[in-house]
């Protein structure tokens, strides 16, 4: 006897059906050629066969590309503000450990000092069911950031592919509560666990791309003012927003209003430090030049964010490398940071 459960792969559909009673269930899907977490239609579980990771990161389920913050209407009394209705509870099935960690990283930002009233309720009401990644891409480098492709503390339940079955580990109380009311799970055996352990190790070793994250904060700060270096690194960047908008840890957003005939709404939408407009003020722009923006992206993720919140804002999912139109590769960039004596760290 073990603490863990298991489920036959054939029965995944049944589990999802049960969960659909309570949650809006999202699974990896291909919509018009783009892999994304989409509402489960109630039958197909073939994603278990083809799916490696989604193009659209699961952050989109919690921080959508565009959302209404509130609407307003003007009448004789003045402006009235109305909040949009709360969404339902989400269950994300099949999230990879890198993306689950990424959500934890975004959580840190949205919890820091002020509580974000849109993102956080969605997160706290959601259940994450991780599925271990047994076939990482050649762009993946999660293991360099303390993540194992088939293990996660950032999900509620963690599934590992052990052949015809998944081993189901209860990671959180929320996960425990879910399995308690889920039928169709069997008790896992010691053999299942041994098998899962092997799978996890094999998966870990399949991640071959590496970065040296140790001391990266100091290394970057020491080279922060090295304009020549940053210009070289930025040369081929085209300042599009792919690497940031589709980064599972990037959370920057823009706020915009719209008004049509006395009625309007305020929206927030994904924004990117790659865009010159991101920091543009009427009179000046601190990051007009491309190299400054590229530097900001790298240094925010690997320097400033960990300085503040003690975690590197990158999980090695490799999307930015895989999707970049010019193959700008963050791992090569980090490798090439000149080695210098560190400036004293400041806070």
């Amino acid at each position: 006897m073990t603490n863990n459960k298991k489920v036959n792969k054939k029965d995944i559909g049944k589990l999802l059906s049960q969960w659909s009673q309570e949650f809006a269930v999202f699974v990896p899907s291909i919509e018009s050629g783009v892999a994304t977490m989409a509402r489960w239609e109630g039958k197909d579980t073939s994603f278990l066969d083809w799916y490696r990771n989604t193009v659209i990161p699961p952050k989109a389920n919690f921080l959508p590309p565009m959302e209404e913050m509130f609407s307003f209407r003007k009448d004789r009394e003045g402006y009235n503000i109305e909040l949009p209705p709360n969404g339902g509870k989400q269950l994300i099935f099949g999230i990879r450990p890198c993306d689950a960690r990424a959500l934890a990283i975004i959580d840190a930002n949205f919890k820091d000092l002020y509580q974000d009233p849109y993102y956080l309720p969605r997160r706290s009401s959601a259940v994450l069911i991780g599925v271990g990644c047994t076939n990482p891409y050649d762009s993946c480098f999660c293991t360099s950031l303390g993540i194992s492709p088939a293990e996660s503390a950032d999900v509620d339940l963690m599934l590992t592919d052990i052949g015809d079955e998944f081993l189901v580990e209860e990671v959180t109380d929320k996960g425990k509560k879910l399995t308690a009311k889920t039928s169709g799970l069997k008790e896992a055996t010691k053999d299942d666990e041994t098998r899962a352990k092997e799978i996890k190790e094999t998966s870990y070793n399949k991640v071959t791309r590496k970065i040296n994250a140790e001391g990266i904060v100091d290394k970057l700060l020491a080279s922060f003012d090295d304009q020549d270096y940053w210009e070289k690194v930025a040369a081929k960047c085209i300042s599009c927003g792919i690497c940031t908008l589709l980064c599972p840890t990037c959370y920057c957003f823009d706020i915009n209003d719209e008004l049509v005939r006395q009625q309007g709404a305020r929206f927030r939408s994904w924004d990117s430090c790659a865009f010159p407009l991101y920091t543009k003020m009427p009179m000046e722009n601190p990051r007009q030049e491309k190299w400054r923006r590229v530097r900001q992206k790298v240094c925010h993720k690997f320097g400033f964010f960990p300085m503040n919140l003690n975690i590197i804002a990158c999980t090695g999912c490799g999307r930015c490398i895989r999707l970049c139109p010019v193959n700008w590769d963050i791992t090569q960039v980090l490798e090439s940071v000149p080695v210098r004596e560190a400036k004293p760290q400041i806070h």
Partner: protein
Amino acid sequence: MTTTNISPSRFLAQDNVYLPHIAVIERIIEETPGIRTLHFNFKDKKLGEEFTFKSGQFGEYSVFGIGEAPFCISSSPTRRDHLEFTAQRVGRVTNALHRLGVGAEIGFRGPYGNSFPLGYLQGKNLVFVGGGIGLAPLRSLIWNVIDNRDKYKNIALIYGARSPADLCFKYDLDAWGKNKTIKSVTTVDRGDESWTGKVGVVPKILEEVAPSAKNAVAIVCGPPIMIRFTFPVLTKLEFTPEQMLTTLEKRMKCGIGKCGRCNIGNIYVCRDGPVFTYAQIKSFVSSEY
């Protein structure tokens, strides 16, 4: 000394930090052809009574349907029959603000950011150095100091603008000019026939006035170019970086350190600033400033 005495703004009637409170424009003062000061009060009177802020803090002001923009509260917390902010017409939101009339409703969120460290300033000689619309945040502090005059030592103000027509808060400058406890110097880059005051850019006049650095703090606010030339002058006058304060301006959207754009180094100007010592600014990441 630290200015980053940040704690979340408690003036949040709703749980949703992004929801603005409705405020009503009560008076508009055209400072210069492109700059106006708007006096406002909250529509909900009770809310208005609960509202507290400190000199140096800012708010996010909405023109509904156009957008939000950050401005410091330019009135003093010691004078609370209304609140004021000052906006220069430079973009979408400020253009809209310049189209508003008395009675119009705007949205307000805040107050956000840190503030001028009053505790640190007390018992010291204060040198205010301002340029153009940069007087707005200083003005909140200046009135604050005047209303608690006995807590501070000598006060000097060096304020300038491009031309006499570009001087903001002329009514305040008049009042401070008459105030015997303040040494107030006003200058313009270029004068006209009727101008009898000083002519010259602010850093130059500052050098002329040459306030002593002894037990003093300089509080500098103005266009970036003025700030960049003012710090060296202060240094020459033997002010240490810890004795120079300024407020930074960056593009901001959320005002609470979430949306990312006002990040420099490991600080968010909206949340950890906007008031910093020159020592802090130098320590962030110099080429970003």
